[in-house]
């Protein structure tokens, strides 16, 4: 059955999952725990923090975050393409070139709009 070719891969997967599970929890089993109130306090270089930790943040962080996600996803598309780069020949190059061109236009627009400037 074609399935048994994948038996080793399945076993490997199981071992991997079991190993990570063991490693993560071995310290929880053997390690000491005494979460005193002072220990679970907020650490701010040894002083008492002023103000809540969760607060309204400037929108700049969100803008940079979104732009990063956008170009990160673009890189994900490059990975499978680079594996079969030789066999696709010129056709593959043209398609990915178009894909990159579209995103580069987006980059130039946002650069000129000043979204990358921090102030």
């Amino acid at each position, binding site marked *: 059955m074609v399935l048994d070719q994948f038996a080793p891969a399945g076993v490997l997967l199981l071992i991997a999952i079991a190993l990570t599970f063991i490693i993560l929890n071995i310290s929880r089993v053997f390690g000491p725990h005494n979460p005193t109130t002072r220990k679970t306090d907020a650490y701010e*270089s040894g002083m008492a*923090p*002023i*103000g809540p930790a969760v607060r309204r*943040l400037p929108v700049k962080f969100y803008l940079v975050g979104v732009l990063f996600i956008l170009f990160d996803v673009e890189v994900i598309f490059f990975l499978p393409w680079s594996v079969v780069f030789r066999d696709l020949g010129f056709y593959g190059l043209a398609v990915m070139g178009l894909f990159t061109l579209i995103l580069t236009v987006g980059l130039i627009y946002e650069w000129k709009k000043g979204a990358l400037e921090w102030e």
Partner: protein
Amino acid sequence: MAEMTAPTTGPTTDMSQWQGSLDELRGLVSDRAMTGETMLLNMGPHHPSTHGVLRLLLELDGEEVVSCLPDVGFLHTGIEKNIESKTYEKGVTLTDRMDYLAPMSNNMAFNLAVEKLVDLDVPPRGQVIRVICLELTRIQSHLVWLGTHAIDMGAMSVFLYCFRERERILDMFEMLSGQRMMGSYFRPGGVWRDLRPEFLPALEDFLDYFPAKIEDYEKLLTSNPLWLDRTQGVGIIEPDVALAWGVSGPSLRGSGVNWDIRKAMPYSGYENYEFNVPLGEHGDVYDRYIIRIQEMRESLKIIRQAIDNLPDGPFRSENRKFVPPPRTELGQSMEAVIHHFKLWTEGFSAPDDEVFVAIESPRGEIGCYIHGTGGTMPRKVRFKTPSFMHIQAIPVMSEGHMIADLVGIIGSVDIVLGDCDR
């Protein structure tokens, strides 16, 4: 397009729980902190890049520092109060621990003040040995500054190189005084004992070995685009603002003010060495960096000139009223035994008057003010230290910058908290 109405500001964060500590800061930080719009963050006593136990209460608008409130005193050990209950000779060991990166320049300030108070002269050999040790201390202090400044900004390897060279200087100090850092090698009247025979050869090959190492640091950092972006145009302080805030030393020369106490008011024979004083133009972090690298080269030049004409003769003044006689003399003369006994039990007495002496420590102008009581213990010893004024000036340089630049600014003014809190 429809006119964009300003987004209605939702309920600002509820700050009632921290009202107590907010009221204390009422006048010091801007009012946006009171409503919780800007974040109050403690870049506190335990922080990797504050070069000691300095606490900066930062008011942050996102990444940008709106206002910065330094709080010092976490290393105040009452050195000046302790010296008041010690004789002048015993007080020297306490001054080592003040600016622990340049122990010998604190010694120098204290000893010069004592010598001026009791009008004690230092023989030429003693003065030249002092100049050699001061310049070695300057190089060693600049090496620690460069190492920590670079590692704060991410250049890890520079730290290891700088400390490797520093070990050679510490070995030389150990030859002189038996202690790597806190040698208490300078005493009122000169130095504690003569140069050891193996000191000068070790110093000779350090002088041949070290210039190439400064080239390495320059190769690593000076034309490194990352370093240039992080340091050029950051933490600018204009000359008149720097003078008004009492900044001194390489940080002041970074803004272009040509004031080096070794040139302006030479002490311990600095007038007969020729060296030039590097100056910056913009007063930013990069200029202060370049100046200290140049200063290391100038110190090498001074040491070279000092070694070439090292006079022989006594290394400490022969005036037995203030300087205990060497042990060999104790066997021969009765006066020596009397002087020895008096100086080591009671110490010498100084007039009931005041004296202020300032010298050029690696960080800036360190001044020592001594007021005698007529007896053997001082009435008041006060050290004016450069790091004290530089920490006070950090907010002036850092408002409007980002936190990452603040780290560079702290590194560039080269502060040591023992120096600031005494």
